[in-house]
């Protein structure tokens, strides 16, 4: 059946068609919709789908499942694989019984990420094969085949989509879901399941020994396509292959093309191409992995060949590629003129107001930041973390953002480094449960004097409102006891724990002041549902309005930065107002009231 599917939904279909029984992931753009798609189907299909608390946990759950013979999947974004790197590296030694597919979605250009790292490096690092889809159809096909590959070689297999694959839509040919394995069983086999040195040494030998067979299998994959034409060649990997194919069609050029969908790349095909051409351009996003292989192979088979790519400055080493950039690169390879990119007249561009993403109207994070800044002042140090709330950078309450959970540990480091001013770090409930717990424990244990604020909307909002252990339900919607962030904080060693409703400004400021003055580790839990999630659950609050006669035009409310507040001689509240009422508390003239 042909359907118009999002890349991530196509991957989810591939997982079902493969008969996977366990799927675990942690949300992260651009990977989240895979589990989002599977969770509502889990009960009917009798499969286990979970949002795990972090990627390391997700991968370990999937490895355990694969050791029963059940086909299993772990999903994450590229930086999530850093968190899961520990089990990932050694799982390549220990191997799997049921197929294990690790989906790690890369984000060239950092559309929604803190870095541009290339998951294919992990494949080479761990000696695990990686499939690199160019579009949603390939993403589905590769996911389905990855399970077979995993079982054939007893090794985890990576599938690495990028943002432009995961969030592309396309007509995709899909099949029916397959039933999961009937009689799963964990069989004891210490030599393959217990990574003691005595076992790890021979397992490492075995891992290296199977590389040649894996490379031979990858070489034959249908996504490695060699089209022999003229004596100028292009080697293009993943989505760049699709861009190159389009550019060659558009230019009607006589160019030999090798499209690559695997890592390691097909070395025999590369050698065959290099023997045929005088000049070759290697096109790929992020790291020059295929390029490095090409250079190495060229030294053996055709040292004279001219290789253009990232090393020669013909292909950018950062950001994402697009058909336009690839077209111009190939034009250059053919000694044709590049087309200038059409651009807006800079004079015209000047009149355009910037439209950065911002915290939603009525978002409780804005209110919490406002109260925090009132109590701690401009001069305090505010280490921050990964989530919607990083957008508070516009409010002057975000001083650092490194990786998941690092707000707390960076704060402690800043304290131990000798900083004497007040320190108040901030992270959300999901990030706290993901990687903040060890940081809190460490800060308490080592006696850091600082405040930790947990912005608790009881949901993983930024990535699309996924549930987590503070939500009170599982990915599949089953009720489960929500973890108490206050009790966890206390038991890990926080000396003072305050709970606030950020919409109650005065009480929030007072609580932040107590936390600030506490001589030890204090925690403030700011509890309020995400405004988007609240509306979805039918919670609607009446909007507010400005009493024009009372407004003196002081702009205190405007500076609060809520998109629902405008200014035209007096303040004005627009239709975006979600009724949080914080601006009414900020107004020194009582000029804001609930609209009738």
């Amino acid at each position, binding site marked *: 059946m*042909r*359907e*118009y599917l*999002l890349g991530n939904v196509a991957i989810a279909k591939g997982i079902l068609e493969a008969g996977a029984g366990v799927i675990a992931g942690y949300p992260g*753009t*651009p990977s989240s919709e895979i589990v989002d798609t599977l969770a509502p189907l889990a009960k009917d299909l009798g499969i286990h789908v979970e949002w795990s608390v972090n990627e390391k946990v997700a991968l370990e759950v999937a490895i355990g499942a694969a050791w029963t013979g059940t086909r299993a999947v772990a999903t994450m974004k590229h930086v999530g694989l850093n968190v899961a790197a520990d089990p990932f590296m050694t799982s390549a030694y220990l191997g799997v019984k049921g197929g294990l597919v690790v989906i790690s979605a890369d984000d060239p250009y950092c*559309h*929604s990420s803190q870095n541009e790292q290339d998951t294919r490096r992990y494949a080479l690092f761990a000696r695990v094969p990686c499939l690199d889809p*160019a*579009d949603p159809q390939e993403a589905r096909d590769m996911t389905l085949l990855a399970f077979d590959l995993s079982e054939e070689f007893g090794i985890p297999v990576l599938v690495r989509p990028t943002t*432009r694959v995961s*969030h*592309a*839509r*396309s*007509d995709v040919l899909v099949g029916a879901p397959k039933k999961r394995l009937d009689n799963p069983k964990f069989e004891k086999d210490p030599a393959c399941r217990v990574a003691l040195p005595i076992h790890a040494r021979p397992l490492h030998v075995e891992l290296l020994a199977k590389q040649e067979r894996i490379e031979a299998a990858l070489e034959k994959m249908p996504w490695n396509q060699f089209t022999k034409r003229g004596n100028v060649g292009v080697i293009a990997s993943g*989505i760049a292959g*699709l*861009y190159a194919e*389009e550019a060659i*069609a*558009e230019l*009607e050029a006589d160019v030999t093309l090798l499209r690559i969908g695997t890592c390691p790349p097909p070395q025999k095909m590369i050698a065959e191409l290099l023997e045929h051409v005088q000049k070759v351009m290697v096109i790929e996003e992020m790291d020059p992995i295929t390029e490095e292989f090409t250079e190495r192979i060229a030294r053996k088979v055709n040292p004279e060949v001219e290789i253009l790519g990232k090393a020669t400055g013909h292909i950018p080493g950062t950001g994402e590629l*697009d*058909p*336009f950039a690839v*077209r111009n690169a190939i034009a250059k390879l053919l000694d044709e003129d590049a*087309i200038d*990119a*059409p*651009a*807006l*007249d800079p004079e*015209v561009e000047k*009149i*355009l*107001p*910037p*439209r*950065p*993403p*911002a*915290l*939603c109207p009525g978002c409780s994070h804005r209110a919490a930041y406002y109260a925090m800044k009132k109590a701690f002042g401009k001069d305090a140090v505010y280490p921050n973390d990964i989530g*919607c709330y990083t*957008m508070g950078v516009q409010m002057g309450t975000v001083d650092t953002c490194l990786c998941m959970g690092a707000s707390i540990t960076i704060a402690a480091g800043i304290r131990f480094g000798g900083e004497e001013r007040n320190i108040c770090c901030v992270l959300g409930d999901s990030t706290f449960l993901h990687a903040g717990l060890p940081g809190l424990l460490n800060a308490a244990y080592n006696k850091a004097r600082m405040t930790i604020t947990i912005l608790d909307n009881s949901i993983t909002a*930024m*990535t*699309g409102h996924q549930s987590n252990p503070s939500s009170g339900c599982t990915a599949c919607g089953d009720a489960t006891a929500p973890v108490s962030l206050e009790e966890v904080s206390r038991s890990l060693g926080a000396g003072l724990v305050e709970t606030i409703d950020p919409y109650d400004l005065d009480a929030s400021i007072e609580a932040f002041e107590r936390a600030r003055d506490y001589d030890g580790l204090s925690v403030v839990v700011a509890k309020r549902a995400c405004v988007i999630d609240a509306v979805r659950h039918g919670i609607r609050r009446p909007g507010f309005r400005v009493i024009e006669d009372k407004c003196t035009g002081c*702009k205190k409310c*405007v*500076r609060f*930065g*809520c*998109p*629902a*507040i*405008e*200014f035209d001689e007096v303040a004005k509240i*627009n239709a975006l107002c979600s009724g949080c009422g914080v601006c009414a508390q900020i107004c020194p003239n009582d000029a804001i009231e609930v609209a009738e």
Partner: protein
Amino acid sequence: MRTSKCDVVVVGVGGQGVILISEIIGRAALKSDLTVRGAETHGMAQRGGSVVNYIRVGCRYSAMVSPGKADVLLALEPAEALRYAHFLSPEGTALVNTKPVMPVTVTTGVATYPQIEEIIEPLTRMCKEVKTIDATSLAAQAGHPQAANVVMLGALSKYLPIEREVLAEALEETVPPKFLEINKKALELGKIEVE
């Protein structure tokens, strides 16, 4: 050589329903036995930020439309039309909803919003035709201002290599039944606007 039958760039502000347009066109293209590609904005970029989607009907390559190649720029918001105007082909058409959505930089007084004429004038120099549509009012007339995206889809239907009836069928299969009547009216009002 042309590598796509029709390239559309849809722009607007997160929350305006840009993705719905792509879903309906994709479904309609499948019914018409055409290949179709789309790309959309998720995550960080969505929260009230500027969003851009690409839709390529009758295309078997990637979903990305190159600058200077869009047959139609469908703008749900006027300033966003100008922001992405460089995607327009000189032979292309810009369909622009004239109702502004103020960015937070304007509401907080950091930037000012241009006059609508200042937006339209440079657009007319970059493509063959510019059509302004008061889609938000037309949507209100249909029953809900939120249906402005479907009004704009109605206007776009004139330029797509897809039969209008097929697009209407796809709309029916995509929107929730309780909003179907409003959306059908919105689609019709958008069509009339460009005739």
